[in-house]
């Protein structure tokens, strides 16, 4: 590791005792996270399978119900998440090049994108709740709609709600990364937490990439 700067105290990551090397620790952590991502894919997969089947059966009702969603807000959120994925990956890139300030800047932007995403989501939810566009028996829209429109909103709130929870969890982890990055813990020698939270964040982005056309653009 580089020891050129002796005036500031440099963070040294100690490999956990049950690993032979830093490389082994990095690979094992990452493998563990991928196994977790497999369970995530299957959990969201169940929701997707249910949605696709019911959309096939009640395609007209789902197409009508999806008109209540503003695709422009969905599109803005897509762009926000894609941009946050870019800044997340850049924070890892700059950690690999030992540029602490840029790591922090990108982490802050990523977190801020999460805030924007959740604000837009909250605005959409408030609008739906106000109109009575709610799941199942809670549905009480003022005008006559297709009989199975409430089913669409059950899926809408389940899928975007589950996704939103993941965004908030991801934001929590990014705050944790920011705290550690301030301490100067990340460098080309050690960036495992950045990599793992990054993978999680990209999966959340990936799920939204499928949610956006399925929920907002059907019909």
């Amino acid at each position: 590791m580089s020891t050129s700067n002796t005036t500031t105290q440099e963070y040294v990551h100690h490999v956990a005792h049950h690993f032979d090397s830093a490389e082994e620790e990095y690979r094992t952590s990452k493998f563990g996270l991928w196994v977790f991502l497999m369970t995530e894919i299957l959990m969201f997969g169940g929701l997707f399978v249910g949605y696709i089947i019911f959309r096939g059966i009640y395609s007209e009702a789902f197409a009508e119900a999806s008109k209540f969603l503003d695709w422009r807000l969905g599109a803005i959120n897509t762009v926000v998440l894609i941009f946050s994925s870019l800044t997340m990956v850049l924070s890892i890139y700059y950690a690999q090049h030992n540029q602490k300030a840029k790591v922090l800047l990108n982490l802050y932007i990523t977190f801020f994108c999460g805030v924007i995403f959740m604000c837009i989501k909250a605005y959409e939810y408030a609008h739906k709740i106000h109109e009575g566009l709610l799941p199942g028996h809670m549905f009480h829209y003022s005008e006559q709609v297709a009989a199975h429109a409430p089913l669409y909103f059950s899926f809408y709130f389940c899928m975007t709600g589950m996704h939103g929870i993941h965004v908030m969890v991801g934001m929590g982890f990014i705050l944790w990364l920011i705290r550690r990055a301030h301490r100067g813990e990340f460098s080309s020698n050690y960036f495992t937490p950045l990599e793992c939270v990054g993978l999680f964040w990209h999966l959340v982005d990936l799920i939204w990439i499928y949610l956006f056309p399925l929920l907002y653009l059907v019909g």
Partner: protein
Amino acid sequence: MSLKSEEHHIIPLKSFIGVFFALLFLTVLTVVAAQFNMGEWNTVVAMLIASIKAFFVLAYFMHLKVDDKVFLVCFLLAVFFLIVMYAFSVVDIYTRVGVSNIL
């Protein structure tokens, strides 16, 4: 015993920027494609574009392109079981609905 960056294949910065703009372009394409009424094909086209976007995210942002293949196997395994879940659910529901409209 340190994590030397040379041991990891670092994807160059311009690839990330390129992928970002590709994803933006594909998002616009999804929205534009949805304006045309192609019947059942709308969903097929939307899923196709989403899958191209997913490829870019997985290959570059999630480093699957340059990483150890074990992570790719993890991902493909999850997708395989997702397809199994989907296939069995579809066969179940549609054979029952087709016979007695149970839903």
